[in-house]
């Protein structure tokens, strides 16, 4: 008697790609705006990026219903923190909160692949990358989602982090200027949308720096 397989899944994949790059005094977080299911497009203008705190922004791809629930959860926890501590959460603090929130649902995970980006307490850019159950790491750049397999090798080539095997330990933050990093992100999304069917329509680029948070859009292939 073979084991009966489930004929209904609580999850769906809405596709899309996210990227984040950390610089010396800025952080760029970008995600495409296409939401799809199977071979159909649900909408061309869905934002996958959410501002969690003054200097902390999260981009998530995967199952958008779980992403929305996760964002709401974190926003509520942040509000409580603000009431208790009379200040905004720092990016590294939010990073750990996100990890714990994800692991809390270890046995019925949030189908959400996240990248967290922002400025740390010293004003330097930081990017944290996650898996679906909360394993996280501070990195210089990261990519998640359906286009990540196309994007990551290119970012590795252009922004290659120094090997962790070399001593002294070097910082992973890129020496590129903000404008160059944005140019890189635009190129990366244009290329990913050529070859990944789930990436396209528009890319939303959010830049966090000392002046605040700025948002810009760029058109991508619509096919």
């Amino acid at each position: 008697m073979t084991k009966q397989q489930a004929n209904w899944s609580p999850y769906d994949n809405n596709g899309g790609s996210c990227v984040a790059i950390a610089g010396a005094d800025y952080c760029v977080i970008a995600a495409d705006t296409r939401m799809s299911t199977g071979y159909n497009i649900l909408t061309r203008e869905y934002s996958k990026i959410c501002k969690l705190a003054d200097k902390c922004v999260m981009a998530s791809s995967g199952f958008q219903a779980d992403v929305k629930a996760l964002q709401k959860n974190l926003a509520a926890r942040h509000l409580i923190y603000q009431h208790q501590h009379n200040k905004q959460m720092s990016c590294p603090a939010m990073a750990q909160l996100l990890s714990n929130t994800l692991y809390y649902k270890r046995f019925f995970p949030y189908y959400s692949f996240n990248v967290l980006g922002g400025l740390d307490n010293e004003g330097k850019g930081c990017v944290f990358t996650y898996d679906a159950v909360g394993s996280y790491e501070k990195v210089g750049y990261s990519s998640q989602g359906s286009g990540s397999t196309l994007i990551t090798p290119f970012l590795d080539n252009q922004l290659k982090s120094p090997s962790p095997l070399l001593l002294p330990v070097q910082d992973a933050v890129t020496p590129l200027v903000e404008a160059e990093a944005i140019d890189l992100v635009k190129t990366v999304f244009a290329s990913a949308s050529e070859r990944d069917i789930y990436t396209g329509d528009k890319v939303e680029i959010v830049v966090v720096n000392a002046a605040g948070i700025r948002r810009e859009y760029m058109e991508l292939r619509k096919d």
Partner: protein
Amino acid sequence: MSKSVIEMPPKGGFSFDLCKRNEMLAKKGVSPPSFRKTGTTIVGLIFQDGVILGADTRATEGPIVCDKNCEKIHYMAPNIYCCGAGTAADTEAVTDMVSSQLQLHRYHTGRESRVVTALTLLKRHLFNYQGYVSAALVLGGVDVTGPHLHTIYPHGSTDTLPFATMGSGSLAAMAVFESKYKEGLTRDEGIKLVTEAICSGIFNDLGSGSNVDICVITKGGKEYLRNHLQPNPRTYTSSKGYSFPKKTEVLLTKITPLKEKVEIIEGGDAMEE
């Protein structure tokens, strides 16, 4: 010792010997390699003077685009063309095969090929393979009996229609046809409608994309408009360009010399022929 079973040469067609092994592997969690399908939107319509066929140009391997500009309108005969959706290898192979058969038939009969001949050859082949040859085709052409348009399904059934769509984008394209098709379209109206239907597939179906190919077949001849429309140019090219100077990072160098003695045998055997 004589063998009890005589070894027979394979008769051709499919061998299902590995099915049990594949099932066992699937249970262990090993997923089979995906084949290249054409995602696809293909259409055909009959207009005043003949037939117009249209297709998109994207080929996909799962979620990745493997060819941004492939040709889905295949030649069958000087007056017959066939659009193919489904597994790319299957559509190529089956159209090439029937095209050759039609040529031989033309030599044999001394006459222009008829669309129904191509139709019967294709459907017989596909039915024979019980749907395992995953080719969904839109066959169109003009012969002595007039213009014809047919759809052929992977299991071997066919339909004869004034307008038809196939592939993952067929619903998007059919929505356009059902709204705007009428009998007795002129050449330009027909091309415009086919282009609209294919564009509908390109933009609304993720399995279809890139450019629009058109083929117009009339009694006088055919016109193959490759990349008739290119509505998807690359959206952004960095003005400064990118260089790739980085080589593989060397973390450690360790050289172990191999033995230096090489023994030379005098008068060794010459190489076997």
